[in-house]
């Protein structure tokens, strides 16, 4: 990986309302560093509708439109259309949503924007549950996780929805996963998205210490372990068919190392670890085949 410099300018200011260790806040900071001030944001109901601050404050010095839960993608498309209709072609519009607003309720509007290839960047900061409303499960919640609607004696029994594959199936120019634990890769992806016309989606793994029941200082570590255990592969897909693994994990750590630092997995037993390990191995294998076959 070639060295790159991360812009020094801060477009997001301190004083925002995120919890300690919020990776969703960190992701926004990186995105704005790359995208700069010629950017507009559409933010649906999610933690970020709180993080940015109450009226009349804002933690970002770019225009931000708060919109309904399921409308991040289409509000961004509408903003872009409104700008272009006025001859303003050099402003990037970014939809910035949580996993619930993306994997669940906002799914239809994302599919619409992707299919039309609307010229927006859609970022999902994935903290794997509805955190704004108090840690309820979403379809991005992983197998085995505790949430307030999947209690420890009945944790989530279905795997996480594979968002990137579904978006790739729309044959959009660029879709990728990324992690706050790998800022260079993340920055590069923001740059690529900025320089690509059409629909782009970046799925950012964004630990939430509050919702994951872990210490704030473990935020980045848990994100790094998710990659190093192959729980969260970092890759990209161009035009729906060209796969590229961005971070190769040659000697993966056992999934237990990732799971055991989080309270939301505390109820899991060795047998559960085994099931999760098998799932992770199988998914990785599947991805590697795609990476090898569709270069």
């Amino acid at each position: 990986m070639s060295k790159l410099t991360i812009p020094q300018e801060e477009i997001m200011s301190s004083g925002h309302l995120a919890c300690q260790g919020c990776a969703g806040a960190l992701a926004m900071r990186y995105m704005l560093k790359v995208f700069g001030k010629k950017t507009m944001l559409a933010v649906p109901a999610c933690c970020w509708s709180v993080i940015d601050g109450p009226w009349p404050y804002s933690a970002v010095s770019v225009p931000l439109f708060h919109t309904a839960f399921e409308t991040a993608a289409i509000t961004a498309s509408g903003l872009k259309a409104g700008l272009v209709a006025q001859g303003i072609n050099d402003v990037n519009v970014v939809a910035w949503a949580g996993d619930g607003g993306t994997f669940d309720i906002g799914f239809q509007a994302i599919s619409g924007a992707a299919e039309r290839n609307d010229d927006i960047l859609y970022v999902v900061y994935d903290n794997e549950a509805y955190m704004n409303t108090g840690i309820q499960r979403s379809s991005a919640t992983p197998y085995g996780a505790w949430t307030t609607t999947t209690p420890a004696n009945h944790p989530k029994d279905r795997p996480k929805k594979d968002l990137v594959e579904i978006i790739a199936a729309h044959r959009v120019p660029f879709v990728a996963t990324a992690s706050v634990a790998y800022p260079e890769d993340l920055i590069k992806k923001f740059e690529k998205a900025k320089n690509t016309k059409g629909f782009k989606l970046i799925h950012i793994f964004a630990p939430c210490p509050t919702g994951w029941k872990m210490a704030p200082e473990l935020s980045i570590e848990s994100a790094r372990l998710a990659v190093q255990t192959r729980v969260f592969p970092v890759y990209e897909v161009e035009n729906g068919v060209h796969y590229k693994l961005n971070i190769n994990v040659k000697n993966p750590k056992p999934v237990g190392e990732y799971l055991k630092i989080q309270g939301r997995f505390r109820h899991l037993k060795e047998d559960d670890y085994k099931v999760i390990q098998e799932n992770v191995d199988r998914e990785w294998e599947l991805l590697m085949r795609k990476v090898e076959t569709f270069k």
Partner: protein
Amino acid sequence: MKKVILGDHAVSYGALLSRVQTIAAYPITPQTLIVERLSEMTANGELDAIFTKVESEHSAMASTVGSSAAGARAFTATSAQGLALMHEMLHWAAGARLPIVMANVNRAMAPGWTIWTDQNDSLSARDVGWMQVYCQNNQEVLDSIILGYKVSEQVDLPTMVILDAFVLSHTAEGVDIPDIKKVDEFLPPYKPEIKMDINDPRSFGALTSPDVYMEFRYKMQQAMDKAKKVIVEEGKKFGEMFGREYGLIEEYKTEDADTILIASATVASTARAVIDELREKGEKVGLVRIRVFRPFPTEEIIKVLEGRKKVVVIDRNISFGKTGIFFDEVKGAFYNSKGNKPPMFGYIAGLGGRDVTPKVIREIVEDALNKDKPESEIIWKGVKL
């Protein structure tokens, strides 16, 4: 230029003449002809607008909200189920104070499936903060789109222009299509004071505490009050320029009338013939058409109704568990007025597109004329049981 066109196409021409810059819409009978014609107009360059063919009405309104917030003149159109699906975003458009104009073709709500007209779709969106204009003919439909932008852009609230399914949407009428240069004079380009602007970054619609929320709502009500004046002023100006004046209500032969019939949309245009007929028989009846339902023309209605002997309201809608909605609102408008309060008869007719013919209207008025006061708060016309 005079053309014979369908009501739906009158909407499309209204949007064209208003030089809308963005359109986002989803097809639904009987609105489809509007979007089909707008697709042609944008495809062949007649209309320089970006048309986003969205995947749902919820997205149609969300897209329109986005474009309007960015500073563009934004348009959409829908009907019934589509309007219901949009509901959340109707609040958003009004709460964000965006001067969007939307055509809604009045169609009854399912189930049972129906495509025919009544007003329960738009009246279910009564309290979202949109102005509502009920049109009686295709000319008024076209003119009201232009007027909609003219008013909305001054009061920062959206306008819903409403036309009856089929009775207008799919019926051809002679319509004067004004010269676009003249419309430009009447309706200058949209220049919002604040918008999503990278040179003036703000956040829009952020979290509000109980300490500030109410003031935003107070200001919406103030805007509605202001709109009453603006609608009348602009309606007059429009009349001076184009020869067709519009107000909040329209009176027909009310001057010496003992009995006033109140109706809206095409029921009102049909009612005119009935008024003439009854007048020939010596009945002193007149008609008030409620054109603008939000903001509600309370003072105007009190003024025409005070001192009359009877008031008859025909509703092509119903608030289940209460009465017809226009009836309810007219009655409510009266409660605190000083003058005498004539007995008020409320009839429900024409739901789900059942024809409201001159005969139906005549029977309704005659029924009221024959009674001292209504036997109940709600009188169903023509229900087969």
